[in-house]
């Protein structure tokens, strides 16, 4: 539980990028699918709560980066998200940004001797 909350702290800042990046690969996903995908890929290290995920999805939709379509599955309405053209562009830019940021963080966190090497 403790580790989960700390990871949540970092996830919050990168959630948008994670979602965009996933959708860029998968084309069309629904909310639960995204959480499962993230959980699977990270081996459970990052668990997205729906309380965090859905606001981000809605915000991206409102910004015009995502479009939704509702499909009825098993008597329930399932909302699928997919990227728009500007969404694709945003996904690319954000992923690049995050990668550079991660590299920078890695440099920061590495022992000083390694970093100066």
């Amino acid at each position, binding site marked *: 539980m403790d580790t989960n909350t700390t990871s949540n702290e970092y996830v919050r800042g990168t959630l948008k990028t994670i979602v965009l990046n996933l959708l860029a690969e998968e084309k069309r996903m629904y909310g639960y699918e995204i959480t499962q995908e993230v959980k699977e890929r990270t081996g459970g290290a990052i668990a997205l709560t*729906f309380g965090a995920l859905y606001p981000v999805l*809605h915000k991206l939709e409102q910004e015009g980066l995502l479009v939704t379509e509702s499909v009825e599955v*098993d008597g329930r309405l399932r909302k699928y998200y997919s990227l728009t053209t500007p969404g694709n562009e945003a996904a690319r830019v954000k992923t690049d940004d995050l990668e550079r940021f991660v590299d920078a963080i890695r440099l920061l966190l590495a022992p000083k001797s390694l970093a100066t090497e």
Partner: protein
Amino acid sequence: MKRLQENKIELLSNYLKKSGLSAELLPEILDHLACEAEERLWDGDSFEHAFSGIVETADPETLHVLSVEHNHLLAMEKTLNDIVFEGRNKSYGAYQLRKGYNSTMQRSLLLGVTFFLLIMLLPNLYARLVPEPEKDDIGFQVELITVDVKPEVTPPPVPVEPPKAEPQPNTVKSPSFDVLPDNMVVEEATPPTVDDLEHALPGEKTIEGNSDMMDIVPPAAEAPAGKGKAVEAEAPKEETFLVVEQAPAYLGGNAAMAEFLRKNLKYPSQASRANIQGRVFVSFIVGSDGKIEDVKTLKGIGFGCDEEAERVIKLMPNWKAGRQSGNPVRVRFNLPIVFQLD
């Protein structure tokens, strides 16, 4: 994968509703939680266990935060009107009016400007569409006058007196003659003798006339017995001639007259302003004493030119009178006076 039964989904839905999740989010979250529940069932959990687990993750507080965040997101799209009318009676009409205010204003402005321009340009447009009448166009003005037609009262025709039996003169039968062989000629049928015709006229039959008249005299024309005295118009003292043997002339000749006119004639300002040019034909009488009288304009051009011409003619000194057989006489004289702008 195990499917959740309807009543289980209903259970979840009711829970979410009870937690105060906004209706817009409900289907999505329901689907999410249902998926999660199915996953847990798949893992071998009982539904009750799975449900309690779900309730644990989706506790009312989390759901409330979700709803609030969603509302905030929607609020960004809301206009001021939506905020003002939040929780008020929107169907009353004011909301619709406010919402449509911008488009209404735009439309009315457009219409107003168009209408105004149309009004302003109307005279121009009209002038373009209706050609201006040419200067030498002839127009007729027809005036309609109601004519009071009264049936003409014709006096009843004077009854014509039936002609009186005309006096019938004596006639003698004047037989017609047939050409016959000699032996068939009847002696009696002889033409009337001169003696017979002395007191009778030749006629078809011999009739004893009813008149004693012998001679037929045409009735004498009854000339009205005038008084025998013609009313003669009093002869004018002096006859005014139009043509005489020796025409009247300005003393000093035409050149002197032209000089006089040039000196005295003023171009009327009214005419010069209106750019009026032309001839004024003035008629006057040169008396036997050479005096000028009865000045009048025969044909003028108006704009004060006629009056000016008359004034100058009246100013002229006495002329040399016209003469007829040696005697000075009154002569009517016509003089054109030219008004010309430089």
